[in-house]
C-alpha cells in the first residue's frame, strides 16, 4: 500500500512538473517578446529590420484605405521575401476587429491604418494601449507639426462639400444654410454618420460651432435663428438638412452620385478628388459661410502584440516614405485631396488644405458626446427612413 501510494505521489509530481513547463509557452495578449516604447528610442535601420523580418510570419495590415494595397505591392517588390496581407475594413469594423483580436489573444494584426477623426480610435485602441505609435527619428524630423500626438498621422484629409460641375458652372451656394432649402430635396448625398467616421467627425464638430452657425443663419435668411429649448443651431441645421439628404453607405457612393449626375451636392472625404483624374465630375467647395467641411486625418500604428514586429516597423517606414521622402510607399497617398504630413514630400495638390474653410474636430468632445450624438443620429435616421425613397 505504501509503495503504491509512493508511486502515485511520484506520478503526480511528474505530471505537475510537465504542466508547469506548458504554462509559460504562450504569450499573453498585450505582451510581446520585444517591447514597444511609445516612440522608437532604440532606432533600427531598415537593413536591420529587413534582416529580422525575413524570419517573421506574414505581415497583416488592417486598413480603411484601399490604397494600402498599392503600398503593399511596392513593399513586396522592395523587400523580396516579405509577404503582406491587407485586410480592407471600414473604421468601425476595424476597431471592433482589433479589440476582438486582443481579447481572444489572436495576434492577427500587425499594423493598423485607421481614421482617427471620430474619437473611437483614440478611446478604444490608443488609450488602452492596443496600438502604439512608431516613428523613427530619421523620419520624425520631416513630419509637420501636429502629426505626432500619441498617434502618428500619415494622411491629412477633409470631409468636404462637393458640387456637381456638369449642372453648375460655379458653386450655387455661398452659405451652408442654403443647403436646407426645399429645392435641394433629394439632391444632397452624404454617408450615414453612424457608419462613416469621417462624416461623424464633421457632424459632431458642427455642434461646437453654435455662434458661427447662428450668424450664418441670419446672413442667409435675414432673420435671427430662433432655437427651441432643448435644441441647438447644429441640431436644427442637421434636422433640416436630413430632409434633403440621401444617406449612403460610403463616400464612394457619394462620388458616384455626383458623377452620374443624380446629386447636386455631396459630402464625402476629400481623397475622392483623385477620381477626377479618371474623369469623375465633382468639384470641391473651397469657401463657404461659415465652413465647407472639417479636417480629418488617418493614423498608422503598430499593434502592441504584433507577431511580425520588425516587418511591421519596416512597413511603417516604407509607408511614410522612408528617411528621404522618396520611398514608394507614400506615392499612392500623394493624390488630390490628400495632403502630405511631411515637409519634404510634394503631395500634388494645387490647393493647400489651409485654403479651405475647414473646422477642426476636438477629439475629447467627440469622445464625451458620443452617446448623445449616436442617439441624435439614430432618432433622425429612423425618422427619415420612413420618408426616404
Amino acid at each position, binding site marked *: 500500500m505504501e509503495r503504491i501510494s509512493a508511486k502515485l505521489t511520484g506520478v503526480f509530481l511528474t505530471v505537475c512538473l510537465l504542466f508547469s513547463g506548458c504554462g509559460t509557452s504562450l504569450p499573453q495578449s498585450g505582451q510581446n517578446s520585444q517591447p514597444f516604447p511609445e516612440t522608437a528610442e532604440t532606432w533600427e535601420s531598415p537593413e536591420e529590420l529587413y534582416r529580422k523580418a525575413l524570419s517573421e510570419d506574414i505581415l497583416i495590415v488592417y486598413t480603411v484605405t484601399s490604397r494600402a494595397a498599392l503600398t503593399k505591392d511596392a513593399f513586396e517588390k522592395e523587400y523580396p521575401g516579405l509577404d503582406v496581407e491587407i485586410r480592407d475594413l471600414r473604421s468601425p469594423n476595424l476597431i471592433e476587429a482589433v479589440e476582438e483580436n486582443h481579447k481572444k489573444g489572436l495576434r492577427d494584426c500587425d499594423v493598423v491604418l485607421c481614421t482617427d477623426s471620430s474619437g473611437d480610435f483614440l478611446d478604444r485602441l490608443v488609450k488602452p494601449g492596443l496600438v502604439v505609435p512608431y516613428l523613427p527619428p530619421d523620419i520624425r524630423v520631416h513630419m509637420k507639426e501636429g502629426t505626432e500626438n500619441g498617434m502618428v498621422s500619415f494622411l491629412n484629409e477633409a470631409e468636404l462639400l462637393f458640387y456637381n460641375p456638369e449642372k453648375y458652372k460655379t458653386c450655387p451656394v455661398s452659405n451652408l444654410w442654403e443647403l436646407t432649402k426645399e429645392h435641394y430635396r433629394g439632391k444632397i448625398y452624404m454617408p450615414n454618420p453612424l457608419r462613416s467616421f469621417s462624416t461623424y467627425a464633421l457632424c459632431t464638430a458642427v455642434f461646437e460651432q453654435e455662434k458661427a452657425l447662428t450668424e450664418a443663419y441670419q446672413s442667409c435668411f435675414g432673420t435671427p435663428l430662433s432655437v427651441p429649448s432643448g435644441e441647438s443651431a447644429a441640431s436644427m441645421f442637421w434636422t433640416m438638412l436630413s430632409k434633403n439628404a440621401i444617406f449612403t453607405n460610403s463616400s464612394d457612393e457619394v462620388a458616384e452620385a455626383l458623377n452620374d449626375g443624380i446629386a447636386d451636392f455631396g459630402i464625402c472625404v476629400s481623397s475622392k478628388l483623385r477620381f477626377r483624374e479618371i474623369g469623375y465630375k465633382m468639384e470641391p467647395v473651397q469657401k463657404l459661410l461659415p465652413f465647407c467641411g472639417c479636417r480629418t486625418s488617418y493614423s498608422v500604428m503598430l499593434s502592441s502584440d504584433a507577431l511580425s514586429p520588425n516587418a511591421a516597423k519596416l512597413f511603417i517606414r516604407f509607408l511614410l516614405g522612408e528617411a528621404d521622402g522618396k520611398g514608394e510607399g507614400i506615392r499612392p497617398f500623394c493624390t488630390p485631396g490628400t495632403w502630405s504630413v511631411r515637409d519634404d514630400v510634394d503631395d500634388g495638390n494645387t490647393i493647400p488644405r489651409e485654403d479651405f474653410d475647414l473646422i477642426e474636430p476636438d477629439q475629447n468632445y467627440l469622445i464625451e458626446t458620443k452617446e448623445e450624438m449616436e442617439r441624435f443620429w439614430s432618432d433622425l435616421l429612423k425618422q427619415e427612413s420612413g420618408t*426616404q425613397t
Partner: protein
Amino acid sequence: MKKQILLIGILLILCLSGCSSRQNPAVLHIAMPFSDMVQDPDTNYYVNWLREQTGLSAEISLIRGTDGMDYLNELFSSDADIDIVLFGNGFSVSRKDLEPFMEKGLIDVSGEDPFYLNTGTSVPGNTGQILWINMEWLSKLQLSIPETTQDLKTVLTAFRDRDPNENGLADELPFAGTFEAYAFSPAEFILSSYVYNDPYHSRYGFGAEKENCLAATEEFRKGLSFCRELFDERLLILRGDKRELAELINSPVCLVGAFTAESISDMIYQGNPEILAKYIHVSPPAGPEGKQNAWYSFHEPEVGAVIVGRSTKKEEARLFLKTMLTKEASLIAGYGQQGTDWDFSDGTDVSIYGGPSGIVTRNYIWNTPQNKHLNGIGPMQIPEEYLTGVTWNGINSDAEYIDARAQMTCRKYLPESRDFHEPDPLLSSVIDEAVKDFVTGKREIGSDEEWNEYLQSLQECF
C-alpha cells in the same frame, strides 16, 4: 399479481415505443452536389437548423463529377435509397428536362410544386451586363473613363500599346471576354451603344418597337462592324469559356484592361481583394448616335429540389423542402447565421440599393468557403424587400456592395417599359451565331451579300 405485472409491462412497452419514435426520427436521405464553398454539409449550420425545425434526421450524400441529368439517370436506374435531390451551384436541371421523369412517376408530382424553386439571390430589376475597367491602368496612363465608343477604342488602344502592367511585355488584353454567356460577351455590350440589344428577348425592341427585331437593322450592322474593328486590332480578345477568362482576370500579373459581367464576383474571386480593388464599373458608352442602353438581367427560378418518386418518406421530404422555402430559412440560406453573419436593421442603416435597409450583413460569406449555409444549393426564396434591403458590412472588397453600386449607376440606362416581346429560341440562336461569326471574321460584315444572307435567315425565323 401476475396480471398486474403484465399490465405494467405492457404500459412500459407502450411508453418506450413512444419514446423510441421520438428518439429515432425519420431519416431522410438527401443527395446534394459537392461544393468547395460548403465545408461540411453534415455539420453545416443551416442543415442542423433544418433538422431542428422539422424534427427530422437528414443524411447527406455528396454528388461528385456528374451533371444533373446524368445523376438522375443513374439514380433511377439503381436502387439507391435517396429521398431528395438538391440542385444548385452549377448542378442543375431544367423543368423541361424533368418532364419525362415526372411522367414515369420517378419524381414525386403530388405536392403543390414538384420543383421547389430556388429564386437565388439576384435582385430583380438589375442590368444583365456591366463594364468593369482597370482603374489602375487608367490612372497610370492618365486616361479618363470612356464615355463614348470612340473613347473606349482610345482607351483600349492605350492599354494594348503602353504597357500599363509595366512588365516590358505586350501581354495586356485590352477588352477580354467570351461568347459563353451574354453577360461576358464584349460584343453584346458594344452593340448596346447602337441599338437596344436585349439578347434575352431575341433583340426585339419593346413598347412601340416591340415587333421590331433590332438585330436586322443597319445600326446593328454598324455595331458589329465596330466590334470587328476592335477584334482585328487585337483590342477585343475572346476566350473559350468563363473559366479561362476568370483565370486571366485573376492573374497576379494584371493582364486584363476591361471585361463585362453581371456581377464582379462572376469573374474575380472573392478572396482576391487586391484584384477587386483594381476595377471600377463604367456606364454604357454612347454610340455614334448617342445611344446608351442597358438590358435587364433575366434569371428564371431554378429547380431547387425534387422528391424521388419511390421515396417512402414523401410527407417528411415535403416538410423538409417547404421549411427550406420559408422566409426564416431563406434568410439563413442567403446570409448565414443571424446574430453572427447578419441581423435585422434597427432602422438606422442604409441599403446598398438606396433607401432604408432591412438586413445588416456582418460577414459576407457568399461564394466563400464556409459552413453556415449551402451557398445556393437547394430551394430558397428570399423576399425581395431583403434582397434589395441589405446594408454594407463595411468591407471594401464586398462584391455585393461593389455590384450594387454598379447597378445603381446603370439603372438609368434600363428601359422604363417592361413590355417585352416573347423570346424566340430559334431566332436567338441564329442571331447569336451570326454575332460570333461577324465579330471574328468568319463571316464578312462588310459584304452586302453575307449581310443579306443573314437577313434572309432572320426572315425565315419570323
